[in-house]
């Protein structure tokens, strides 16, 4: 008891300046075990601490509190408390103990799910991420949790802001896998197929030593999305994908690869029979909706091909060539595509003819110039960043050691060891 009270007092006392906080942190670390031992009785002490000032201490207490199994009633109160804590805590103090913070947030997510109200967790989790991140390019362990909540609560737009940021620094590869996978799913839900492709591609080509289930599922979705978006699926994984992935992913996703093959043949009847035949497999992977989208995208693909060869075409002809059932359906499809901006055409209902137009974009407007200009700027920044990383890498002692061992030796000097350290 005394220790806990004493701790509380110290927290209250030492939470003001940065150096105090550091010493507080050491104290807390030492006291951690005793805190955990008394986890059941810590609850009332939390009221004595103010999360907005004594964030670090509060965090430790909170973590110890929630360490044990939590019932549904308790979960409710905990959720409220943690949410309040997250919104009001100080970022710098939190960052001193990131693991604890992450654990607390994860437990928060579990409790929210226990209560079956994922929506409650979305906003606090977002705040938590922002506070934990050292920069916007940093991927924390909380990102995937957050996206999971977004998915479960179906509020995809919240996940938007997180997905738009580029990620360069990663703590744990597993976080990245989950993040990209969930992100891909959210993007598919919002029909941003390009973004989904990027994210899923990252999962599939990430370096991994063994095939993991996330990569397999991601690959299945990747094939489907690239069918929808590009009309063709990648024949082979690019060379930079890990060899493990290259060898095994294809074997594990056999029905999808066959689907892609029959897609490329262009016969709608074939692909529909194939889908019917393998319905269960697709369903068990929760991919049936995506598969149906892929099939319907085939019509679009065929119509787009027609714009390349014909100037005008009757609706009846379109229906025949694309294997639709009637000119009415063809008209509907074409109308939809014009609305979505996928083709440029005019429909003459009197003759039942469709006239295909060229892309009217002349690349002469101000907006286009701005667009091009901003793209150039963005790429230049990216280029500089790339150079920076390259330089950093070249100075890395481990890299030098390895490169030095395998370089060619033309000169006497080359036989010396690569200098690893300057000892002056």
């Amino acid at each position, binding site marked *: 008891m005394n220790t806990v009270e004493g701790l509380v007092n110290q927290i209250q006392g030492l939470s003001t300046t940065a150096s105090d906080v550091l010493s507080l942190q050491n104290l807390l670390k030492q006291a951690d075990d005793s805190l955990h031992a008394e986890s059941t009785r810590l609850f009332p002490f939390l009221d004595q601490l103010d999360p907005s000032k004594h964030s670090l201490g509060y965090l430790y207490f909170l973590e110890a509190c929630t360490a044990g199994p939590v019932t549904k009633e308790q979960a409710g109160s905990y959720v409220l408390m943690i949410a309040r804590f997250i919104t009001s805590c100080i970022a710098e103090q939190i960052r001193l103990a990131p693991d604890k913070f992450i654990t607390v947030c994860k437990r928060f997510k579990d409790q929210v799910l226990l209560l079956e109200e994922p929506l409650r967790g979305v906003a606090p989790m977002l705040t938590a991420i922002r506070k934990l991140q050292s920069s916007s390019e940093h991927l924390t362990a909380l990102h995937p949790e957050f996206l999971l909540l977004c998915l479960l609560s179906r509020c995809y737009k919240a996940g938007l802001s997180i997905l738009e940021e580029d990620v*360069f620094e990663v703590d744990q*590869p597993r976080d990245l896998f989950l993040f990209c996978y969930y992100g891909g799913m959210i993007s598919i839900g919002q029909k941003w197929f390009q973004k989904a492709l990027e994210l899923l591609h990252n999962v599939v080509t990430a*370096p991994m030593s063994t095939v993991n289930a996330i990569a397999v599922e991601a690959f299945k979705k990747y094939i489907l999305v690239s069918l929808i978006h590009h009309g063709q699926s990648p024949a082979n994984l690019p060379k930079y994908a890990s060899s493990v992935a290259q060898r095994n992913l294809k074997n594990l996703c056999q029905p999808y690869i066959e689907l892609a093959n029959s897609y490329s043949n262009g016969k709608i009847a074939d692909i529909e029979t194939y889908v019917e035949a393998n319905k269960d497999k697709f369903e068990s992977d929760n991919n049936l909706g995506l598969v149906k989208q892929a099939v319907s995208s085939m019509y679009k693909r065929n119509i787009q091909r027609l714009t390349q060869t014909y100037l005008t075409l*009757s609706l009846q002809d379109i229906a025949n060539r694309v294997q639709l059932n009637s000119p009415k359906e063809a008209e509907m499809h074409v109308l939809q595509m014009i609305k979505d901006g996928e083709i440029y055409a005019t429909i003459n209902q009197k003759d039942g*003819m469709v006239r295909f137009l060229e892309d009217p974009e002349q690349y002469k407007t101000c907006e286009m110039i701005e667009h091009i200009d901003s793209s150039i700027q963005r*790429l230049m920044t990216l280029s500089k960043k790339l150079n920076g990383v390259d330089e950093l890498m070249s100075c890395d002692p481990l890299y030098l050691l390895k490169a030095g061992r395998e370089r060619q030796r033309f000169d006497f000097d080359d036989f010396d060891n690569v200098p690893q350290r300057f000892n002056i």
Partner: protein
Amino acid sequence: MDGEDDAPKSLMEEMYANGIEGVDDAPSSSTSTTIRKNRPIISGEQLDIEAYAALYSGRTKIMRLIFLADHCDNSGMQLEALRMAYDELKKGENTQLFREVVQKIDGRLGPNYSMDATWCAMVDRKADQRKDKLESELNAYRTNLIKESIRMGYNDFGDFYYAHGALGDAFKSYVRTRDYCTTSKHIIQMCLSAILVSIEMGQFAHVTSYVSKAEQTPEALDPPTIAKLRCAAGLAHLEAKKYKLAARKFLEVGPELGNSYSEVIAPQDNKVIDNINFRNFLELVPEVRELINDFYSSHYASCLEYLGNLKSNLMLDIHIHDHVETLYDQIRSKALIQYTHPFVSVDMRMMADAFKTSVAGLEKELESLITDNQIQARIDSHNKILYARHADQRNATFQRVLQTGNEFDWDVRAMLLRANLLKHEYNLRASRKI
């Protein structure tokens, strides 16, 4: 050469009347065993097998006769061919082919042509004897280590196997002589034999390699040998479907060779006509000349008609048989492309008349050509007009630029991410080691 002009019409009628695949015969490519004369044969009711066969000799004659027999529907002609094959075989020593032919005849020609078992047995026995003799000779030479005799021994062996139809062994023996060749003439001889055998076996990869080997020998080659080599190379390329290469090779051959080459050359560029050699040779084959002229003066209908006639003949030729379809398609599409090239807009009805097809069929053909990007145009299906389309360079450039930018962006970001992951892993491993 007379009756040439009404030949096409009569051909058409006869084709339908007799249901025969080939009526008019045009001589086809030679092989290195024979040199043929170039004579279009005006036929009567039936394919003149005797005349056809007289153009060849040796093994190819037998093979061609068998091929004819397999592909002709008319049993009269079949039997004729088989009978000639039988006679030929009896003169030679190839018992295996003999048995095959006998099976095909199946007793339809009467008792004279049934399985002559005694003759077979006799031939076989003689063969074995000769083989033993050759073997012992060869061993003797080998112990003596006289290069020249060893080479001759292997050569004899090769000839022997060839006469008996054991082509694989023949090939092996010929190849073994290579080790003992001293002068380039020997090498050339060896190469020629090897080529011959490989052509028969259908292994055209070997043919190409030996042809190149023969061409590399330092001594100058005399024209007939060059012709033979070129011809062999051409055949090999034909098999490999490299029609352009084949055409070029054939072109370099002197005017003595056959007109099927012209079919191959037709898909080639215009420069062909200017080739003097080719012109000389064309003089000898007026029908084909007509065809080519038509092609280049855009009389496509008559051109295609001639093609149709020749088609039947070509089907009977062993070597071209498989490629006739592809060649025809190519020639046709080339004609179509050439027709549309100079125009901004073309009325499809007129074009359909020129090519003797319906507008719908023409539309389909054009569609496939446009999809393959061989014609730059678009079809106005309502008015049935073909409009030429010229890509807008400026727009296309902008589009490409933006697209490249996006791809670069994406690639680099993904790469940085991966690099980071790798570094992390590496650090992990390093820290574990330490």
